[in-house]
């Protein structure tokens, strides 16, 4: 299994480097040991690649849309070539890591508020990756639980108290 992961990492890295080259973006790709969100729910088989270089905002795009397209295509190509499927995470200049840290602080802060007020709180609409971070962050919280509501672009996380209101 460990060998598989190394192979997949290598293939993913080559595919990503080729795509960046074809996009005319000069950048360096470094594999990372894992992604911080996994602290909450370990998924040791995921492959994380970080892209470093100058002026990479263009690779992230509005609400990270370009980055998620890039990641999606790398997953599809690597899946087709290796006939295995591992969740490949692509980050640009630690963008997702920073976003992840910010979302975790937000989750903890709102959880405290929900615990005190005993009133559910609905967050802004977020992409799937961001919602997942909130869910994972609060999965083991003793006083609140999370749900998602709404469809597509408007899908948002609701943080609810575990005890019913008085």
């Amino acid at each position: 299994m460990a060998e598989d992961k190394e192979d997949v990492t290598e293939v993913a890295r080559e595919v990503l480097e080729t795509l960046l080259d074809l996009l005319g973006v000069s950048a360096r790709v470094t594999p990372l040991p894992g992604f911080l969100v996994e602290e909450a729910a370990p998924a040791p088989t995921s492959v994380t690649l970080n892209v470093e270089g100058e002026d990479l905002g263009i690779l992230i795009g509005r609400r990270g849309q370009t980055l998620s397209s890039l990641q999606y295509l790398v997953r599809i190509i690597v899946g087709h070539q290796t006939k295995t499927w591992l969740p490949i995470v692509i980050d640009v200049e630690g963008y997702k890591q920073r976003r992840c840290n910010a979302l975790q602080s937000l989750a903890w802060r709102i959880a405290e508020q929900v615990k005190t007020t005993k009133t559910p709180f609905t967050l802004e609409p977020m992409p799937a990756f961001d919602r997942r971070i909130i869910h994972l962050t609060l999965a083991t919280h003793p006083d609140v639980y999370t749900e998602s509501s709404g469809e597509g672009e408007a899908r948002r996380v609701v943080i609810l108290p575990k005890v019913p209101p008085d």
Partner: protein
Amino acid sequence: MKELVEFIAKSIVDAPDEVKVDEETNEEGLMTLKLQVADEDKGRVIGKQGRIAEAMRTLLRVKAAKAATRVRLEIV
């Protein structure tokens, strides 16, 4: 532009030799890429709910923005 689509398509189809991309530019400078693949591979380059085609278009937009042009992708 063409090479980007060609690389992605060839990497996800079962018949890479049948991948063909034609590039046309009209008077207004709008470039159209026509991607042709084997019939059995059409679904692969489109993807569920068009997700793969959409992702290719997103990357094309990045490249087009860098070159200050516009580009369209058609799957024929």
